[in-house]
Every structure is written in C-alpha cells, then in structure tokens.
C-alpha cells in the first residue's frame, strides 16, 4: 500500500498510504526499545545523507534509522564540499548517483531542489526538508506521536502556532492532518502567515486563547530567526507575550491536550521552558523517538519498491 519511488512530500500521499507508514512505524518503535536494535532489512543497500543545510537532529535520526536497518550509511555535510567549488546540484547528484546508492536523503535550502534532484537519479530519494516547501518525515513523526497519544488521527482539533510563513514543517503538517480529516487552526501574527493560506482548509486567528480553545493538540513552531530579514515581529518579548505558549494560555486547550515542538526550541520565545519539560503535557522527547521509527518505516517501504522494480527491470532485460 505504498506505491511510491520517492518520498518528496506529503502532497500526493493518500490517507491509506499514510496509515501504512504509521502502522509499520509502530513495529519499529518496539524494535528500537529492545537491547538488540539491529535488523537486516536494508542489508547490502547504500544510503547517502546529503545535507546542504545545517542539521543535527534530522541527520542523526536518518543515520541511526539506516544503520539500525543494516544499510551502509554515509553522511555528507554538503556545505563543506563541492558546492564551495562551484559544482551545481545536478552535477553533485549525478556524481553520487554514479556510485550506485540506493537511498538518498536530501536536505536543501531551496524549495523544489529535492524534486529536481530526484528527477536526475535512479535511486529512492527522501526529502529531509527543502526550503519552505515540505518536510514529510517530520509530519509523519508528528502524526505517529499524535496517534499514539490520542488513540486516533482523525476528528482532532490541532492548533499550529507561530512562524508558519517560514515553516516547511507547518506545510507538511497541514497537508497530512487535512488529508486525515482533522480540524486545523493556525495561530500566528499576520506577518508570519504565508499569502493565500486561508485556502488550505484551515481556520486562522491571531489570538492564542481563541485558537487554543478546545484543542487536542498544540503544535508550536520555532521562530526561524535565520530566515528572517527584518520587521516580522516587534521583539521576542512581545512575541512571547502574545504567542508564546505558557501554562495560562494552554489552560484554554482541552485538559488532556498535548504540546508538541519540532525542535530545536527557542525557550522563552515560542514556548515556556518549564512547560516544554512538563512530562504530563509535553511530548517533545517522544517526537524525537518516533522520528527514528518513522524514518525506518519510510526507508523500508521505499526499499521494498526499489527491489521489486529492479527485479522487474531485470526480467525485462532478459
């Protein structure tokens, strides 16, 4: 139930396909809690992580996921390599492609760059975040976390708060949660909302109390200071006052509402530090755990397709 060659975005995934990934992820959550975490699902396959943008947690998560499944994993910090020598993205991709990798995990600062790369290589490509476009595995790990905590992934009220304009996490989450028929509320100052977002099937407010009312899930986004070039918000303290999540604002959500954050957090800017550490409300650490499982599931499914297609191609050749 997952007929795809690449995982470039949530766009194009159907509800049953999302469920397929999440179901398989559950098995890997259990596996990851065992003492012996090693499996041979990807044995013999080569996974290359190409990160054209700084990343610690996502890169570590993909690397660990690949290693636990038995793949040969290589991580490349692309900022430090050939890009500096003026090589284009496509040339870099073709060079690596010639080494016969089976899975490429790519993060790039430009929207659409991963799609471009995927069109030039003959292996499976996973998007680990491209510009402000998509970050599909983050949305999937968020979905898995929600489903485990809430027992379902539909008919929930999910509030997504903060810097939506610069966030690929928000876009992927809006697509996924919408596909699974949830009610989505966006809470942000209007300067941090992308244009035309009202046509994405979401409710929009710039009032935290109003937006959090009755929410089952509160998803906080990082204020992407590095992507900002002036005058989006007056100051961090005013932002925290109006849009930062603290106990008082969270009191408007449902009593059992969970608090999520894709990390890394700006404590005291978008989320109160104590709340982030509150194990009764915050599932931030669990999100990280789910991340490894979801990435294992995604790579497993793509590798199954890859093997099947290669077998079919080989038959055609004969």
């Amino acid at each position: 139930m997952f007929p795809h060659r690449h995982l470039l975005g949530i766009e194009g995934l159907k509800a049953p396909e999302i469920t397929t990934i999440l179901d398989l992820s559950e098995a890997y959550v259990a596996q990851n809690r065992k003492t012996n975490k090693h499996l041979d699902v990807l044995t013999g396959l080569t996974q290359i992580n190409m990160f054209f943008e700084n990343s610690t947690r996502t890169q570590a998560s993909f690397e660990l996921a690949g290693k636990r499944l038995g793949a040969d994993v290589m991580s490349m910090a692309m900022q430090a390599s050939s890009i500096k020598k003026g090589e284009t993205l496509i040339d870099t991709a073709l060079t690596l492609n010639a080494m016969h990798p089976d899975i490429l995990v790519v993060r790039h600062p430009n929207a659409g760059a991963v799609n471009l790369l995927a069109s030039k290589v003959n292996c499976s490509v996973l998007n680990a975040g491209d510009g402000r476009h998509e970050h599909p595995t983050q949305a999937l790990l968020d979905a898995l976390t929600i489903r485990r905590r809430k027992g379902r992934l539909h008919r929930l009220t999910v509030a997504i708060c903060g810097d939506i304009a610069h966030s690929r996490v928000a876009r992927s989450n809006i697509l996924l949660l919408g596909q699974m028929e949830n009610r989505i509320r966006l809470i942000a100052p209007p300067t941090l909302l992308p244009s035309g977002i009202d046509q994405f099937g979401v409710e929009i407010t710039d009032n935290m109390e109003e937006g959090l009312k009755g929410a089952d899930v509160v998803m906080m986004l990082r204020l992407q200071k590095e992507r900002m070039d002036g005058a989006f918000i007056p100051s961090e303290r005013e932002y925290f006052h109006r849009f930062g999540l603290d106990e008082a604002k969270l009191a408007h959500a449902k009593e059992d509402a969970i608090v999520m954050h894709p990390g890394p957090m700006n404590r005291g800017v978008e989320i109160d530090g104590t709340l982030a550490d509150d194990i009764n409300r915050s599932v931030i650490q669990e999100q990280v755990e789910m991340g490894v499982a979801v990435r294992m599931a995604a790579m497993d499914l793509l590798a199954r397709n890859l093997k099947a297609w290669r077998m079919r191609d080989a038959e055609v050749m004969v």
Partner: protein
Amino acid sequence: MILTNARIIDPEAGTETQGAVRIENGRIAEIGDIDGDGIDCRGLCLAPGIVDIGVKVCEPGERHKESFRTAGLAAAAGGITTMVTRPDTDPVIDSPEILQFVQRRAASDAVVNVLPMAALTKNRAGREMSEIGFLKDAGAVAFTDTDHVTQNTRVLQRCMTYARSLDALVIAHPQEPVLSAGTCVTSGPFASKLGLPSVSPLAERMGLERDIALVSATGVRYHADQVTCSASLEVLARAKAVGLDVTGGTSIHHLTLNEFDVDDYRTFFKVKPPLRAEDDRMAAVEAVASGLIDIISSMHTPQDEESKRLPFEEAASGAVGLETLLPASLRLVHAGHLSLAGLFRALSLNPARRLGLEAGRMAKDAPADLVLFDPDVPFQLDRARLRSKSKNTPYDLQRMQGRVERTLVGGTTVFEREAT
C-alpha cells in the same frame, strides 16, 4: 516584385482584404488588384512585419547564449522584421562606443532590422545618468535599465527631466524594487504551496504609480514595458485619461501562461515579473483587446541550460520568444479575444509608432517589411528545432497554431519555409 492572392491585414484601417502587394525599391508601391505575375500567396495572411521591443541579443558578453546571427534567423522565422534590442548585456550598452559595436555586429550578421536601446543610467546601476545625448545621436531609439528598477527616485526624476529635453523615450519595468527583491513567483495559495519567496502584484502597481507621478512632473515620453496585472492596468488607464504621453506593453508569456504553469518547479516558466494569476492574465488580454495595452513583445531572453537547470530560486529568469511570439499570439485570435488586424496593431503598428518608425503599416510608401503566414496550420513545438542558440522556451511540446511562411525585410526575402 508582386505578392498576389494574399489576405492583406491592415492594422491601421483594421481591415482584412484579398488582393496583391507590389514592392519597389524596398517599399510598398501599390496595394489592391494588380495585374502581373508574382509570388502566389495562396490566400495566406500578409501583414506588416513585427516590431519587437525588448529583445535580448547576448552580444557583447554572452555570445554562447545568443548572437546577432542566430537571433536574426530566429526573428526572421518568427515574422519579426525589426528587433529593438536591450542594453542589459555585458558590458552594458551605456556609451556610444559600445552602441556602435552593437550596430556594427548587427549590420554584418543580422538578417532583420536591429535598433538598439541604451541604458538610462551608467551600468544600469541607478546612480549616474548615461550619456543620453550622445547615445541618441548615435542611434539609440529608447533608454531603459530593463529589469534593474531605479531605486533612487531622485536619480530617476533627473534622468526623466533630461530625457524630456532631448525628446527621448524612456522605457521602464514597473516594479517596487524592495518588495520584489529576492522573489520569484506571484504571491498566493499556489506560491505558498510551493514554498517559494513571492511578491504581490501590488509591487508592480506601486512601481507604476511612482513612475507615472514622475512622468506627470517631467513630461517625458514613457513606456512601461511589462504591465501584467489588473491593479496596474488601472494606473495605466488613469495616466492615459489625463493625457500623459504614456504607453503600456506586456510580454506574450503573461498573455498566454499563468502562475500554475510553474507546476513542479519548472524553471523555463521563471520570468520577470513572475507569471500571474489567471484573473490578471485575462485582464491583460482584455487590455490588449481594448487598446489599453498598446504593445505585445516577446521579451526574448536567452538562457543556457546551465543557468536553468538549478533549483527554482537560483535559476535564471527569462524565456526565448522570437520564434514563438506570433504562434503564441495567434492563440488570442483563435480564442476570439482579438482580430488579426487588432493583433498586428499590438505587434507591429503600435511599437513602430511609439519609436517613430515608418514600419508597421500596410500602406503605400511604407517599408516592405512584411510577414506572410498561415494562421491556422497546427504543429507541436520542438524546442530543439528553434533557431536561437538557447532553447529555453516555455512552449516546448505544446500544440500551437499558425506558422510563418515567408518574411521580407525591405522587400528582400529573409526567411522562406522549406516545403515539407
């Protein structure tokens, strides 16, 4: 020479008539029922050749993208008899010496007429005025910094005031430079889905408002080269209503494509300004039909594969258009928005008039710059077969209707389609 049995399109009179055209000494000598043997046009359309304002020929500087030879051949094959070339070359055409280089190259290599424009400010940097007087004497037909919008309003005001004293035509790309900096698509739900940096059509309107205010203060002759959305069409209409010497143009891409064509980050659809929403495209089409937009251009901008095979944000802007201008424009005719005579007002008559040229007319004594074309013949565009050195057309593999059969410049055939 006599061209017989033609469907003669007269954009001035707004008519189509059957008849013949006699050419003598490079000019139209007679139109009507003419006895005698000549070239049988088989009832195809004969119109004044296209005058295309804003063609980029990449000489000097980037001859691997386009040269006067290849641009001339492409223009001839597209029914364009006069290319009005842009100064955004490397180096910029901002001195009479560089202008003369371009004129020399054009005269020796291009099979169609070439009239160069020069930069309004030195190096198109928006700081110092270029030598408008010298350049005009040397043959520059208009002054423009193309897509480099003059940020400093005081500089622009002085350039316009000075240009006014020489009766020079200033052509500008209306855009608020700060709002549009670093953007590559039109804002809206589609841009947000793609996650690309976007600009509101408001930026074009604000840029045009500023320019129009300066035009009314200085009295300069002004042409806005790309008016692409309904918000700025209102501004253009107001300027014309109060009698300012203002004209508006748009590119064929903004008349035939919209923002959705970018689809999955297709960089051949990256142009400046970015493709607009369908409502704005339709508003521009209606403005051409009503005459509010005076001129349609190809905005021919050659880019090599390397500069397009990049992530969308980093890829170069622009599309080639010399050979596709006429067939793409004919879409507007086939869709019932324009008559053939109305189309050739925007392609030939109006641009020629704006530049004070004799061309663009189907009249006795006008230069015999003519295009003979079949408006209906269908074909599928294959970009590999374009005559331009660069093949960055957004119409690749698209179905089009209408093809040039023969092009004449000054009575001489410069293109004739080979029988297939």
